[in-house]
């Protein structure tokens, strides 16, 4: 099982919220109050300045997905929620790590970063800082392999996601398997 939510009991919710102060606190408070587990959470402005997008990876074993979505939907500043099944979504995440890279292992670390198509973003006498963007499962694999060299510090952003495009009809409609909430709770 991955620590970062790449297995089946994790679902990705992309939540469009009003860009008002306290919105993130409301979402976080709802999750903690109702005992829902968050695996990762990413917030960023959307293409409309009135709204932000929160991408939440939830553990659907802590509560049924249906409940999590409906309770979230009851928050007044939550405008819409879309559930992305990992199988039908393009998910990406960014990893930054500072790793031990003394003279003996430096070459191997650089090679590993190269294999994963990552980048070296900083160089010190005994350390390298590396960056890797990609599917969360790829980041998991990279992390497992790089750990052997010694991770000094690591940060992952949590994932963002878009629905997969339909291969037949390229009108940009959401592919099957995505669910838009249709009704709002009172």
């Amino acid at each position, binding site marked *: 099982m991955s620590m970062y939510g790449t297995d089946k009991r994790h679902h990705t919710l992309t939540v469009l919220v*009003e860009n008002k102060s*306290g919105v993130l606190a409301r979402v976080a408070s*709802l999750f903690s109050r109702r005992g829902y587990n968050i695996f990762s959470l990413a917030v960023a402005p959307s293409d409309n300045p009135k709204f932000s997008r929160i991408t939440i990876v939830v553990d659907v074993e802590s509560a*049924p997905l249906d*409940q999590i979505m*409906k309770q979230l939907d009851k928050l*007044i500043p939550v*405008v819409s929620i879309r559930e992305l099944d990992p199988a039908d979504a393009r998910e990406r995440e960014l990893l930054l790590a500072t790793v031990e890279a003394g003279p003996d292992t430096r070459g191997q670390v650089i090679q590993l970063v190269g294999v994963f198509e990552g980048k070296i973003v900083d160089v010190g006498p005994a350390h390298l800082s590396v960056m890797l963007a990609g599917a969360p499962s790829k980041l998991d694999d990279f992390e497992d392999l790089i750990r052997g060299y010694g991770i000094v510090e690591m940060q992952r952003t949590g994932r963002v996601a878009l629905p997969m495009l339909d291969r037949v009809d390229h009108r940009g409609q959401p592919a099957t398997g995505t669910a838009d909430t249709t*009704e709002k*709770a009172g």
Partner: protein
Amino acid sequence: MELTGAQALIKSLEMQHVEVMFGLPGGAILPVYDPILDSSIRHILVRHEQGAGHMAQGYAQVTGRPGVAIVTSGPGATNVVTPLADAYMDSTPLVVITGQVATTSIGTDAFQESDITGITMGITKHNWLITDAADIPRIVSEAFHVATTGRPGPVLIDIPKDIAQSTMEWYWPSPGDLDLPGYRPVTEGDPALIREAAELLLTAERPVIYAGGGILKARAADALRELAERTGIPVVTTLMARGCFPDSHPLCLGMPGMHGNYTAVTAMQKSDLLIALGSRFDDRVTGRVNAFAPEAKIIHVDIDPAEHHKVRRADVAIAGDCRLVIEELLMALESLGLSHSDATRGGSGGTPSDAVAGATAAAGSVAAGFPREGLAPWRSELSAWQKRFPLVYDQQPGAGPLKPQFVVEQLRDRTPEDTIVASGVGQHQMFASQYWQFDHPYTWVNSGGLGTMGFAVPSAIGAKVGRPDKMVWAVDGDGCFQMTAQELVTASSERIPVKIAILNNAYLGMVRQWQEMFYEERYSEVYLSPDLPDYVGWAEAMGCVGIRVESSDDVGAAIDKANSVDDRPVVIDFRTDAFEKVYPMVAAGASNDDIMVDPSQVGGNPA
């Protein structure tokens, strides 16, 4: 027209047709209190802000209009946290206005600063911190809209002192100006699901309507009655729904749940179809969830889709307003062949309840004479249970201990039938709910979901303010009374003639009952004393009439005397039997199959 933020706030409340608010001023809210002097809105000065919140709840529960409370920052604001949590649990529409320190001081731990929007995030439907006086009319409009539509609930508006003092150009928003892009409550149910529900309704053999507080919120009592009478399906009314269907109706089974009557509890257990209307499968109703109504299919109508499948998976889950959905359901039933003429309005077969002392005055029998002949065996089974397991107690005349149930029955029989009853939380609450005969909606004011001791006195005051035309009695416990009794000073000074019956058993009785039954009679911190405080002296000191009753012989006269007082509150200190227990009872965590009836009814085979 240029107004200060404070003036704009009060004017906005006037625009919302607020007629009364309950509150207490302080530093941060001072600017808002000045225009109150010039306003048409009545302000009732409470003695503790918790009282303001519960009064607003009582007002809202009996009128259906949102209750308004106004308090200062810091301790004033934190004192309304309990009423907000209570209103959130019971879906009561409230608008609470709190003062806040100036925006320039927020975050500095200024005097009487508290993060009240943060504190109340999880116990309000929504809350707002105003940061610009120009937003006031819009935010007030949004607040009332959110509080009263969809699933109603409490909202809070936090107004910093400098915002109240700054100026704005007055306007009044039209509905389209509200900025609530994420708020679209559903109202009408899905016709396909309603048809599915109608089909289930017509084929079930042991159906029960499980009516909850949502019926009252949706003002659906008439629609519910029509549904019950047209289908002949019996109705249970939860603690939150008492009065939404008349207790005297032959199809009424009364209250289910932990202290519900045997028939209501068992009817649900044995049912093959539960029609949950505005009810939410609360643990106090279901008992152990995985043993609850094991054979029942579930139709669940609720305006809040998050209630569907939360506790119990529904076979047909309809999101919508209860009144609209029931009306649509009736039309669907008609199109499926259940015609109007099948209905026997009012029910012909209900035998009048025999007024045997000690027996409940609930419905006589679940009568024949209703449509759906196929339900006759079910209704006769229910009648048999009602006969075998009525609510019972044993009031010996004269010197025997005064039974709390006897007091409630006397109150019921000696007051107008549409009297509003408020209660606290404990044994007295259960006795009130069990033994009162609720024949009208909006006559029961109660803290159901949160179970807040001290709710009765202030909520009764708020109810009387909302319905001055009705008699309002609070049935309170001695423990509860001591938590909020100071509001009787408010009632005396405002000439609000509420009446309080303290069922004074000298104990935190409900807790004592649990310790007796489940902790081997090890009584830990539950004794209160019958005469400390001196309730009559205390009542008189607060400007009320105080009466003490120790014998069952004096109950009637005391109630009659209280009913004749109309210029001040009355408190009756009924010294009741300390060892009376509430039955029936389903122990916490037990299955409803293991309902414990009154010991006098044990023996024989209940099924």
